């Protein structure tokens, strides 16, 4: 595997004034959402900034090809990591809608070729959303012994008028690794309909992690499916959900052990911190090969009293103790 020398090319070197204004707005919102603003101006970092259906910035590095097409309601992204390429610094992706209303449909195709290695950080920013829909359809191919880590963090503001609908289909070739973490803790969730399915070949590894904090009347639906189709494949479907007020969540974690020595685990914790909140967990584990093993654990309930009192015995008041525990679960 070779480490690339940095050679950068700017796709859009000149921005029109209106686009520049949108870009500044997105960068500001990105910083407010906890993103590292410096990284967006760092010429050594590959990045992609999309507002509504406009590509505001797209910087790549050698070995990483980013093609984008603006559509009526969003952007089609085709990202290729060449064989044997290891991208030294995380690739930064920033998607968002700054106005109160809007629709953004991202069609995302990723090809991480054999022996490549990439970390990607995505920030999805909808700080003023009152009637916003953000959809993503991802079609992902992880090549032999390639590794791709994808961390997506959302910031939604406090109104709750947003629908987030991420769908993903991921194929992992022999020895490949896919690790994704979807986090939606800041601001209101609105309606989340997360649906990811992974198909693992021999000795590959899949980790799907979702963390969300539902408030008000937020509605969270999670479906994580892992198909362990190759010998020795491993998978983890993990979710951490906290609900307050009248929020509700249904988490389905499904893992299928279809090959010898494949190992899978479904791990779901939902904390209910409100008398009207409703949490449901539906773990499904299935084995079709006698040498496969799939396990699950699910815990739903209020914040553990012993944990709260442990922190209270160190001088924290009850509200603060609960806050520390909730933040820990969602970290």
């Amino acid at each position, binding site marked *: 595997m070779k480490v690339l020398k940095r050679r950068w090319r700017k796709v859009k070197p000149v921005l029109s004034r209106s686009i520049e204004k949108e870009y500044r707005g997105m960068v500001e919102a990105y910083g407010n959402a906890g993103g590292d603003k410096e990284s967006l101006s760092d010429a050594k970092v590959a990045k992609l900034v999309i507002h509504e259906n406009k590509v505001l910035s797209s910087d790549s590095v050698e070995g990483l090809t980013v093609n984008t097409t603006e559509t009526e309601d969003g952007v089609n992204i085709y990202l290729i990591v060449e064989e044997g390429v290891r991208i030294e610094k995380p690739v930064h992706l920033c998607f968002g809608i700054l106005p109160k209303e809007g629709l953004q449909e991202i069609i995302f195709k990723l090809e991480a070729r054999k022996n490549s290695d990439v970390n990607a950080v995505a920030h999805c920013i909808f700080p003023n959303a009152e009637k916003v829909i953000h959809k993503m359809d991802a079609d992902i191919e992880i090549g032999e012994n390639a590794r791709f880590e994808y961390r997506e963090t959302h910031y939604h503001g406090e109104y709750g008028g947003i629908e987030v609908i991420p769908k993903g289909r991921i194929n992992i070739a022999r020895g490949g690794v896919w690790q994704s973490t979807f986090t939606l803790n800041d601001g209101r969730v609105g309606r989340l309909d997360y649906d990811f399915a992974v198909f693992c070949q021999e000795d590959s590894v899949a980790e799907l992690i979702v963390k969300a904090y539902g408030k008000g009347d937020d509605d969270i639906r999670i479906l994580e499916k892992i198909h362990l189709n190759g010998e020795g494949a491993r998978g983890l479907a993990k979710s951490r959900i906290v609900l307050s007020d009248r929020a509700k969540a249904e988490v389905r974690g499904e893992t299928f052990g279809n090959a010898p020595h494949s190992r899978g685990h479904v791990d779901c914790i939902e904390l209910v911190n409100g008398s009207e909140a409703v949490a449901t967990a539906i773990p499904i584990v299935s084995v079709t090969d006698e040498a496969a093993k799939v396990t699950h654990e699910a815990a739903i309930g209020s914040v553990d*009293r012993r*944990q709260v009192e442990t922190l209270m*015995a*160190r001088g*924290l008041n009850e509200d603060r103790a609960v806050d520390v525990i909730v933040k820990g*679960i969602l970290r």
Partner: protein
Amino acid sequence: MLQVEDLYLVLDGKPIINGLNLHVKSGEIHGVLGENGTGKTSLAYVIMGVNNYKATSGRILFEGQDIGKMSVSERAQQGISLAWQEPARIEGLTVRDYLSLSSKNAGFKRIYECLEAVGMDPARYIARDIDSTLSGGERKRIELASIIAMQPKLAILDEPDSGIDIVSLPILLNGILELKNQGSSILMITHSEEMVEIADIVSVLCAGSILRTGPPAEMSEWFKENCQSCGHINEPDFYEGLKEAVEKGKTSA
């Protein structure tokens, strides 16, 4: 420092603590030695006010103030803390966070010192979560480190040696002595006569009441000879007769 007067605790109609009197002086390690089921952990809980353990009657005075109606947090803010027999695991809370919260935001240096005091390599543990990835012994030592970081006036240690391997035991004892050296009084609840060797004074607990109090060596010997071979542990009728006999000096047991 801590005065427990004629304390009773009844849970689900069952007497757990029966007229218990206990005095922990400032700066001392006071051991409470008792067999399983004698009310040791209940005593720790009722002093700390956790798990809805509220005294049925009697008083708990801390520095002269009745703390019986205070919440766990208020008792902690007065200067009392508890190291649990089985400490809670909290996902996403690192060792550093836990010790920092316990010590009101102590810096790295202090956190390092507290971990070293219980024989833990700070570089190895400081970023780890206090969750189920830690062994029972590791979690217990972190619990003690958090108490050292907090520097309470009174530390209640509930079975501090349970889950600790024999190699780590001297390290744990050093940690408890470190706690004492920094000025904390300690109420050490245990069933182990080895543990109370570092105590200044020891009380023997049976059927939710203190049977006798004295020097560690003497109490350990008495505990070994009488309690460990007793076939009537926690039988109140037997206990009353035993208590009377002990008070009259008629018997060693």
